[in-house]
């Protein structure tokens, strides 16, 4: 098997710079996962399986036709909503919220699927009504966002629900919601917020308060935030070395394989490692935006941009969270955190973006 063969048949439709950068991140992530899981490689092995499944799906998606994506879009949304209903009634409880569905050998997290399904649905919706986009259409798009937002919120998972809301609003914004309306509703929200606040129940108020100020709960999420910052800070420039981070090794860091996986990396590889990895992420981000800008139709551009921003909102929130800039909302770092659903969803998103880029000239406006 020669290299040209590989190039012609297997990498023909893959965007090589993007794919290469993602492979580098995945490898770094796997090395880091060994340390994050206290040198127990069982997580690493199942993460490799997750990656293989994810890359397989990415590869598959690159080869399907764009109209298939278009066709699947509303179904993906409907299935996700259905799954959210199921999880709310039959889901597995974890950390005080129901997020998983037990499928025997694997548990899936429907709220993660929304990161693809919602952009798909919104892009499909705007494409369908592209001949008459007005306030009514934007309003209906808004309803499409509010429904999963509300379902996830009632799990209850405030963090993820806000991420879904944010991802949806970005797409509506991209779709051309007038700046006047945005400004007006922003001020409207500001003015009405005291009334909304007063109408909330006490536990709801507390929930929002503890999200804004983690130190109001110093032994809970606040403790985690502090331990994460100590992990980062003790890393210094070169880090404390792979497998040598005391914050990780001695269990001071919480959730080392998922939400706080980058704290592990920061402690052991230092600012040097952090800058390197962030640079690769920024390259991936930039490449996705660049590819989006090369696309010719609104469906492709909306979907591609929606998926990109959704991925990188997760990235920003995760890094902001572990460095104490944002409250602890419990969101994984794409391509890095341990977790099948997140990994597969992230790789499928990249697959869709690659597909849309490859097929950019096939559907002309």
């Amino acid at each position, binding site marked *: 098997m020669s290299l040209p063969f590989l190039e012609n048949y297997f990498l023909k439709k893959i965007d090589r710079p993007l794919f290469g950068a993602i492979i580098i991140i995945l490898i770094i992530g796997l090395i880091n996962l060994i340390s994050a899981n206290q040198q127990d490689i069982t997580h690493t092995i199942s993460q490799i399986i997750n990656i293989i499944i994810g890359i397989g799906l990415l590869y598959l998606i690159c080869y399907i036709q764009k109209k298939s994506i278009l066709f699947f879009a509303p179904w993906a949304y409907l299935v996700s909503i259905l799954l959210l209903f199921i999880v709310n009634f039959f889901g597995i409880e974890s950390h005080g919220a129901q997020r998983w569905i037990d499928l025997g050998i694997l548990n899936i997290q429907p709220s993660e699927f929304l990161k693809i399904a919602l952009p798909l649905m919104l892009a499909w919706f705007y494409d369908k009504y592209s001949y008459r986009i007005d306030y009514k259409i934007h309003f209906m798009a808004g309803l499409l966002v509010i429904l999963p937002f509300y379902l996830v919120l009632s799990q209850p998972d405030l963090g993820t629900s806000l991420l879904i809301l944010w991802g949806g609003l970005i797409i509506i914004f991209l779709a051309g919601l007038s700046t006047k309306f945005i400004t007006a509703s922003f001020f409207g929200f500001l003015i009405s917020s005291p009334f909304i606040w007063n109408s909330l129940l006490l536990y709801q108020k507390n929930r929002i308060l503890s999200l804004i100020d983690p130190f109001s709960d110093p032994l809970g999420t606040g403790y985690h935030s502090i331990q994460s910052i*100590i*992990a980062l*800070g003790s890393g210094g*420039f070169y880090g404390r070395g792979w497998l040598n981070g005391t914050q990780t090794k001695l269990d001071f860091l919480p959730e080392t394989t998922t939400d706080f996986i980058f704290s592990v990396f920061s402690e052991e590889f230092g600012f040097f490692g952090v800058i390197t990895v962030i640079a690769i992420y920024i390259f991936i981000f930039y490449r996705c935006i660049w590819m989006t800008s090369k696309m010719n139709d609104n469906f492709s551009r909306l979907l591609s941009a929606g998926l990109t921003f959704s991925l990188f909102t997760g990235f*920003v929130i995760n890094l902001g969270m572990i460095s104490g*800039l944002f409250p602890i909302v419990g969101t994984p770092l794409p391509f890095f955190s341990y977790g099948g659903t997140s990994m597969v969803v992230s790789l499928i998103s990249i697959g869709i973006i690659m597909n849309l880029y490859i097929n950019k000239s096939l559907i002309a406006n």
Partner: protein
Amino acid sequence: MDKYYIKFILGNRLRLIMYFFLIVFGLIIFRFFYIQILQNNYYLTRAFDNSIKIVPIAPTRGLIFDRNNIIIADNKLNYSLEIIPSQNENLSKVVDSLSKVVSISLRDIKKYKRILGNQEYDNSIPIKSSLTANELARFAINSYQFPNVELKESVKRFYPKGSLGVHFLGYINRISKKDLITIKNKERTKNYIGTDHIGKAGVELQYETELHGKSGFQQIEVNSIGVPIRTLKTYPAKEGSNIHLTIDLEMQKIAENAFKNKKGALIALDPKNGEILAYVSMPTYNPTLFIDGISHKNWDKLNNSSHKPLLDRAINGLYPPGSTIKPFVAIAALENKLRTPPFKINDPGYFSLNNSRRFRDWKIGGHGEVDIIKAIAVSCDTFFYGLAVELGIPKLNKSLTNFGFGIKTGVDLPNEKSGLLADAKWKKKRYNKKWYSGETAITGIGQGFTLVTPMQLALATSKIAFPNLSIVPHIRLNSRQLKQNNSTYSTKEISNQTIAWVKEGMENVTEDGGTAAFIGKNIKYKIAAKTGTAQVFGLKEGDIYDEEKIPDHLKDHALFIAYAPADEPKITVAIIVENGGHGGSTAGPIAKKIFDYYLANESPQ
């Protein structure tokens, strides 16, 4: 709106959101730079503080031996059960379940709570200490039921000889708040980290610094719930040094037994070098009572006892010397060219001061013709009344000071008393009263105001044996740091003739006609001695002291000083038997037991 318009807006807005994201990326990078580079040292320290626990290592206390390497203060293994407070928040539940295996008293729980209240970190605290062999076995079998209870092994002070020699040995006790301040003032706080005990009396207090040693510590890496992972660094403790004493424990035992139920004190010295061979203060008490803090009940019992067992009579007991002062008064006279043999007096049985007041001799009818040698041998009071009056207090006190009376002997034990040599100035200050010459007269026979400690008597007697040596009594074998004797107080100036006469007098004490003649019978060595009887209360003139009629606690103290063998002194003793009556008959036999043991062992003839 058409598709192209949307496309235009989308392009613009895409760029807008991209810039927004890039700004946020920038913020995040800056945030990481700030935490990881600018605040690196701070957070590195925090990470260390998180994971590194300093665990003190208490030094093992030095052992105490007698001169023949017999152990007096030992350490023995002690097992205790400790729990970490955070892992056992429901204390009563833990205690309940533990009580099925070991007995946990209310006092144990109180102790636990006191330590818990004082400690800053979540260190393990003993809930039960000093497990018996049975309890240890029961816990060992059932230990699987108590995953959070740790069996700890430590060494604990142990006094194998019990109360024997407790007054020189002293004891250790828990470190009090007052001790902590003392330790802090001496800048020795670091040496005591992890230690609970400190010497409180006797040798345990005197040589505390050496016996205690210095604490070491371990840096231990712990995980987030405080479980030790590994030891990073160990700074070992400097163990306390062993101390060897001059005491001969066998002699000590003989001496203490010889006292039977009597109160009193005994010091046996090697007159050539000042080594303390026996150091008795009766009654004694058990030092073990103090090790883990004495209970109120026991303390009250010891402290309120009319027998005062806690009083170290050997260096803190102040007694009128009685007739044991006479050899020293004789030296003072002879050195001042008074009563030089063959000068004699004719003793009618009393001394008449200024032809007005009479001072009785102990022997009704008197001793007849008495020179200074006989005066010592028969303990003639009449002789010494007149002598003292003629000599005067200043000259007498000056000579007595040379023998160490009225000043501390410098023995290496804490809180020694200096005794008292009174004079007119002292009386004026103390009682605002004039000094009478009658008081001078009775000072000559050791009644008056004069007070001595048994240690002072033993030292002074040794100085008669060897006036040219300036010894300091000491209890530590091979002491290097002895207080230098003040050269102004020396017996070196005393003429050989003076010493020879006094020695002759003391030798005659154990001869026929002497006050302790029966002691000198049937022994292979010669004892030079002086008996003494110190009045506990003054008899009125004309009253006759009748031992039969007086209650025990008002009976006279019996005193006895001696050295032997007389021609080549190897041992000096000073004995006080409180309320023992006449010195020769109660204190003398005790001395003889000591001499028999020591001299028979030392030079079997």
